[in-house]
């Protein structure tokens, strides 16, 4: 008797998967998308900020489709409660790939559950270290004027390209402030590093600034987020390997929390 019940359970599971599989997958995927885009800022770890409205719309639409699929699954059950057994094969042939989703779709559970339960962290020092931030052969030139401010907030990438390529020396004499995570180089050098993301984390590239000055002796641990204030130290000839990585003479180094958007936009 117990065996019969087990088999019924197994059969019931198969039927339930066939009937509610699409609904579960759609709800999971939609829920995961909404969780990172609508309910939190987590999407910024993966994609650029401009994608948020599309993510919210997609997530809502997927939830709606999931609810429709679940309702349809339930109405199916009411119709077919009695002649389930002889109906199964027929249903499979007729509805193949419609009421229950295609098998490949179960792969969607991987990113969906990851996002719902353990959202993967933002890329950090590991990815920054893998990529030798190469010197793009762009040639030197002048840059648009920087806004006037006592302390200038600037992105690591912006500072970096101005320090290496700007023949107008727009950084000269300015006090700048930038935020990034800490990476360490050989012989004690340490850097404020930031990843630049154009579309999604798959296209991350690295920019970094070497920190010098009095405060630089007690370098923070790798992957700590810091805000550094200081002034530009010119180095090397503009546009050559000698100018890279740019230097910053730091006056203050302050530990901060990881910003909501861990990446800089190009």
């Amino acid at each position, binding site marked *: *008797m*117990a*065996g019969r019940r*087990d088999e019924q359970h197994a059969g019931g599971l198969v039927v339930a998967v066939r009937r509610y599989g*699409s609904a579960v*997958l*759609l709800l999971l*995927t939609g829920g995961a*998308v909404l969780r*990172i885009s609508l309910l939190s800022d987590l*999407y910024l*770890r*993966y*994609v650029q900020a401009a*994608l948020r409205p*599309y*993510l919210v*719309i*997609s997530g809502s*639409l*997927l939830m709606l*489709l999931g609810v*429709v*699929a679940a309702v349809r699954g339930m109405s199916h059950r009411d119709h077919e409660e009695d002649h389930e057994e002889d109906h199964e094969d027929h249903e499979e*042939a*007729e*509805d*193949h*790939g*419609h009421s229950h*989703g*295609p098998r*490949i*779709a*179960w*792969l*969607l559970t*991987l*990113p969906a559950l*990851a*996002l719902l339960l353990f*959202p*993967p*962290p*933002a*890329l*950090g*020092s*590991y*990815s920054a270290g*893998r*990529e*030798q931030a*190469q010197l793009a052969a762009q040639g030197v030139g002048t840059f648009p004027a920087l806004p006037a401010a006592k302390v200038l907030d600037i992105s690591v990438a912006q500072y970096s390209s101005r320090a290496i390529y700007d023949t107008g020396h727009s950084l000269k004499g300015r006090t700048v402030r930038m935020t990034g995570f800490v990476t360490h180089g050989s012989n004690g050098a340490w850097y404020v590093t930031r990843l630049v993301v*154009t*579309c*999604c*984390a*798959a*296209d991350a590239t690295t920019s970094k600034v070497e920190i010098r000055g009095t405060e630089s002796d007690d370098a923070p641990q790798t992957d700590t987020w810091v805000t550094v204030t200081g002034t530009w130290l010119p180095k090397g000839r503009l546009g050559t390997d000698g100018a890279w990585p740019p230097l910053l003479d730091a006056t203050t180094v302050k530990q901060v929390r990881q910003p909501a958007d861990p990446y800089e936009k190009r």
Partner: protein
Amino acid sequence: MQNERTVVDGLRLAVRAMVYAVLGGAALIAIATVVSVLGPMLAIDLYTPPVAAWWTVFTAVAVQGVPFLLLGTVVSAAIGAFVPERVFTRLLPRNQALAVPIAGAAGVVLPGCECASVPVASSLMRRGVAPAAALAFLLSAPAINPVVLVATSIAFPGQPKMVLGRLIASLATAVVMGWLWARFGREEWLRLPKRTQSAASSPAGMKAFVAGLQHDFLHAGGFLVLGAAAAATFNIAVPRSILDIFTGSSWLSLLLLALLAVVLCVCSEADAFVAASLSGFSPAAKLAFMVVGPMVDLKLIALQAGTFGRSFALRFSSTTWLVAVTSSTLVGWWLL
């Protein structure tokens, strides 16, 4: 007699249940023990920076792809449900040589990723469209429709030539393949699709739209996840220095990315972003990636083999790959 049989059946069932219970219980206990002991250790040991970065890139590619995939499947399901297919048949001229470029250009109006275009092409063939024209449509639709072109322009900001190059090279490949089939193709290679399911063609309207949308999204979503996993693995596992070797030679890098497009199986609505992320490759190589990707990849070969037969899929895909590489080389050299 009857009684004996029920008793024997009952006994057999009971024994089977016992065996299942013992085996299943033992397996459960073993798994529970291993997981509870090793799990925390493994979780810490395995969740190393590279693994964490893999998960981040993997979910990033998947998340990035979802809105585009959904947009594509919404439109393609709407057309599948509300636009009668005879519209396509009526618009095509009888002459195959003429029908091929028109069908290829008609791909512009069917936004959908390559997974959606295979069933559409097969239903077109069933409705009496010449296979050459339907195949040109099959190749061009996922590559040159507005959704893909918009996605491409977002992925390559400020490079309209990349969008134009993709349009021209993809269309050229589709048309050349259609003409090649019209000239050299043999009916016996093509296992013409039989009508197995009534659901896809006849019922129009809201119900078909929702069903098509659910199915297409889940199907393509599964392949998107597969592509994201492959892309993340490639991103993390392959040392950048190897890519540098290939980026050194523009010929090798073009062939490498054309092969990569086959292996990565990224949906055409998302592949421009993957191409843009392959920093360090020449624009022509990225173009080849985007031209080959929607036309030849592992999941597409599998879909075609399922729909049109294996002998067709292998011949067609290998020829398409060569034509696509040639056309993107020419267009890349001319335009980019």
